[in-house]
């Protein structure tokens, strides 16, 4: 059974004029896949990611996450699924500015009710994994973009989620750091077997993944297998 199974997902925004963003999305993502969702801005890729991350509702269709139907969830249930199943990585890092790196990483465990000491140990462990031990006590505005994104990745990993959803993870980074971050995600996928879904509009970023799902005007176009990572000859350069 696929980890993620979308059947005929439709989503319309009703801000003044109805906007039909997703027009019948069908998608299956297996456990352990490293997938990119690619599309131009306005193609519906962010909406799709929000639905995958249970951050937003869909109008019709079914979304099975690990065999469980994600529909009409209460806020509390949604929060719990997000907390336990999914790790988020955002373009703008979305770290809490008045908390240190280690406190940011701890936060998901705080909401799980993990005791402080245990939480702290675990957060330090993940920061070490990402080579940030010496930055644990620093605030986000004292760190570089790549460091911030690595803190965000540590925060996404700490709950040991099944899926990591990355929304333009390299969007705010220079090309060198972008490569580093993508390598990191790749390593996590290969070594830990975490399912990773990256949303991007950059083909270079998408090329690092194993499967590229093209989305255009709210429908899924072609799905490329990209095991040789030669979908785009230019490499990861902006």
């Amino acid at each position, binding site marked *: 059974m696929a980890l993620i199974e979308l059947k005929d997902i439709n989503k319309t925004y009703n801000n003044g004029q109805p906007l039909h963003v997703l027009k019948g999305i069908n998608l299956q993502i297996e456990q352990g896949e490293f997938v990119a969702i690619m599309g131009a801005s306005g193609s519906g890729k*962010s909406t799709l990611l*929000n639905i995958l*991350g249970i*951050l*937003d509702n869909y109008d019709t269709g079914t979304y099975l996450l690990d065999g469980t139907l994600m529909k009409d969830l209460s*806020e*509390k249930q949604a*929060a*719990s699924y*997000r*907390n*336990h199943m999914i790790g*988020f990585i*955002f*373009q*703008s890092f*979305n*770290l*809490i*500015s*008045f*908390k240190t790196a280690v406190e940011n990483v701890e*936060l*998901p465990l*705080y*909401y*799980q009710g993990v005791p*402080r000491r245990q939480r702290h140990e675990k957060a330090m462990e993940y920061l070490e994994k990402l080579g940030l031990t010496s930055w644990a006590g620093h605030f986000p505005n004292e760190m570089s973009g790549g460091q911030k994104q690595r803190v965000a990745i540590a*925060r996404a990993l700490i*709950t040991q989620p099944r899926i990591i959803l990355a*929304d333009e993870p390299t969007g705010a980074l220079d090309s060198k750091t972008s490569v580093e971050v993508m390598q990191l995600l790749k390593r996590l996928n290969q070594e830990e077997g975490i399912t990773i879904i990256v949303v991007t509009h950059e083909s270079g970023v998408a090329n690092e993944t194993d499967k590229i799902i093209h989305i255009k005007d709210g429908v899924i176009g072609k799905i490329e297998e990209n095991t040789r990572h030669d979908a785009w000859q230019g490499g990861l350069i902006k």
Partner: protein
Amino acid sequence: MKLFDTDTFREILDSLLRNKSRSLLTGFGVFWGVFMLMLLIGGGQGLKGLLMKNFEGFAQNTGIAFSSQTSKPYKGFKKGRTWNMTYADVERLKNLVPELETVTPTVSFWGRSIARGEKSFSDAVVKGVRPDYANIETPKLRYGRYLTDSDNAAERKVCVLGKKIYTNLFPEGGDPCGQRIRIDGSYFTVVGVDWNEGQISINGSADETVSIPLNLARKAYNQGNIVHLICFTGKEGIAISDITPRVREVVNRAHYVDPTDEQALFIMNTQLIFGIVDNLFRGINFLVWLIGLGTLLAGIIGVSNIMMVSVRERTTEIGIRRAIGATPRQILGQILSESIVLTLVAGMSGIVFSVLILAGVEMAMTQGGILKAAFQVPFATAVLAAMLLTVLGVAAGAMPASRALQIKPVDAMRDE
């Protein structure tokens, strides 16, 4: 969500301390409201105490009757006649008005000089009283005893001194009982000192009074049958104002005075005066609560406003928290606890500060180790205020918290 674990508390402190001056200024509104409320309550209570001090020792249901010129013609007598009450009136009242408990006659002489050796007190009131006068104005004996029936029967030359006279004649302090002083040229033995400070001036201040046995005073000052004042108390459950007309009728009729002539026999009713004071302070209390609660409310609205601003500012932060798994309840709890902590800390410092100020006032009002009137707010009032603050904190946080709940996690990503 546990309210009092260190984590929650640190989260709250973090966000409150992030805007120190803003939290401080917002808290000041609440602080000032509580401070004013407590100070006004304490002040009002203290003033009432000071006023009540004037009636110290007086039974609450006391009537004091004294005769004056008639204002109505009666049975062939013209108005404007002067007359005096006599000892027979005391017996009449006892027999004819069964609702009365104590009926006691007194004579008093103003501007008398009291001396002991070189020391003297020139403007004293010498009061001739029976021992049962103690039922009217309870003596607060610092030394010795009060006058007794046998003092009265034997016409002993003994006296009880008021506080002020005692301190003038015995500046060195100590028990003066057994010592002799001079009242208007005759020598008296001191048997007691009354520490009352009641200021009901109708019969002279208690602290400037020398009490001597009535029978002795009658003779020493040549008063014959004349009674200056008849003091009486009602039995348990009897209102003095209800029996005043009967008292007047009994006394007036015996002296051929119109039984309804209120000027001829003036009756002072302490119950009435206590009632007036009570009403006055009920009004003052009402104003105190109105002003205090009004100020407090303004402060609370300030807190609510600032929390609203804070929630708006933290849209992204709250969105992030929601995205990584905070439940709506946890967000609600956080905003509410921030509001409660801010309100409580500010309010508690208001209570503490006002208690300190009131303690200072009490210290200034204390003379010779004796407190004149209690200004301090009762503990129960402070506890009530603290509970009120918690409720107000919740109320102040309610709107901003519901606003925070409307923030969807998606909003966190919308700042790009």
